[in-house]
């Protein structure tokens, strides 16, 4: 196993990975488990992403959604939204993909140690936060209260249902799920994810918050977290931009003075606060 940033053939050279398992999550979201064909794979930090290459079709940046403790099995949860991810949706067990990475900054797990942790995810944004939950649960006593707030579009769009049920059943973790709209047969919460925050219990001054989801959702969640007393320096968010090279060279993902692929995707809020909500950035 190589180190977190070790890219044995150079960062632009994809390694071959075989699709070992495909899990259908929702109508348009699926999870691919990949195993390395060349070498032993790599280790990664929660929140990092790879460039997945469908040969002859193109690359797409995808966050790693699997367990950081199991780098030999590379897991990505993907929403089929375009040509490349649509092609990924058609892959079968045994097919080969190219993988570059891991790239980007991870979630601040060391800073989270000893503090309450609030995770707020929207839609597919739960996928990049799942590795955080795996790490927390592997070493649960290192962290204070753990709160997961998850919002998505409809009950049919809920990701990782079995795991959410399992996490909800734990006594050492608070899990709240809401959907934006639902039929009357849905027994859970309806409303945006920010509406879950007042129901949760944590110590704002000793909390670290990690947010991943649509930017608008994160902006509203940040406002509510800060109203609750969470410091700007203790809020982290994963930004989404059009990453191409993964190493801050091509400029496709420029975000003010930053490149999201290299300086992010995980940013501390106070570093990017002035960029959020700016048009055309």
């Amino acid at each position, binding site marked *: 196993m190589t180190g977190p940033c070790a890219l044995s053939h150079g960062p632009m050279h994809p390694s071959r990975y075989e699709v070992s398992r495909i899990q259908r999550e929702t109508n348009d979201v699926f999870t691919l488990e990949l195993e390395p064909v060349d070498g032993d794979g790599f280790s990664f930090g929660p929140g990092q992403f790879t460039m997945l290459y469908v040969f002859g079709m193109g690359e797409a940046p995808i*966050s790693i959604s699997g367990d950081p403790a199991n780098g030999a099995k590379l897991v990505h949860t993907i*929403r089929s939204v375009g040509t490349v991810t649509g092609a990924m949706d058609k892959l079968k067990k045994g097919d080969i993909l190219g993988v570059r990475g891991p790239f980007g900054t991870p979630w601040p797990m060391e800073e989270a140690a000893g503090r309450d942790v609030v995770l707020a995810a929207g839609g597919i944004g739960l996928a990049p936060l799942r590795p955080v939950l795996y790490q927390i649960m592997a070493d649960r006593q290192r962290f204070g209260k753990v709160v997961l707030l998850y*919002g998505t*579009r409809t009950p049919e769009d809920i990701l990782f249902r079995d795991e959410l049920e399992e996490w909800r059943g734990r006594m050492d973790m608070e899990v709240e799920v809401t959907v*934006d709209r639902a039929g009357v047969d849905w027994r859970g919460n309806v409303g945006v994810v920010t509406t879950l925050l007042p129901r949760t219990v944590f110590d704002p001054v000793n909390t670290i918050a990690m947010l991943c*989801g649509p930017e608008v959702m994160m902006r509203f969640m940040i406002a509510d977290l800060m109203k609750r007393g969470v410091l700007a320096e203790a809020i982290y968010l994963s930004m*989404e931009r*059009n990453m191409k090279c993964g190493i801050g060279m091509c400029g496709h993902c420029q975000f003010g003075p930053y490149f999201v692929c290299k300086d992010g995707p995980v940013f501390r809020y106070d570093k990017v606060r002035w960029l959020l909500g700016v048009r055309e950035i």
Partner: protein
Amino acid sequence: METLESILKDHPFFRGLEPHYLALVVGCAANVVFKEGQVLFREGEEANLFYVVRHGRIALELTSPERGALTVQTVGDGEILGWSWLIPPYHWHYTARAVEETRAITLDGKCLRGKCEEDHHLGYELLKRFAHIMEERLKATQVQLLDVYCPHPPEKKV
């Protein structure tokens, strides 16, 4: 033992209310339990009450001919349900149904409305509190309307 007074006094919505006003509110309050599936009120009915949800979940439903009954929002532990008693013509805009067994405190809005007309300071205190809830719900509705989880066509990190 928890009394209606102690519960309402400690509730964020009523916190800071002058004692004589709190006593007046308590006088208009009663404990209530709704069974799963029970309808609290229906769209179009006269709105004379509001609720402090203590434990449980209430769904606010709208029915459209094309899509049938839809839940547009749920109200849960510690939240306030209902402000139509404050705003003419005092009719409910949604149907409210208990999704699970729900314990709540019901407050006589019609009675309080009369008291607010007589004492504008009380009216202002209650309006300030409801305005805050309305602002929160309006913000939430705006985000809901943005449909932020709708898939976008370009390839982006997911």
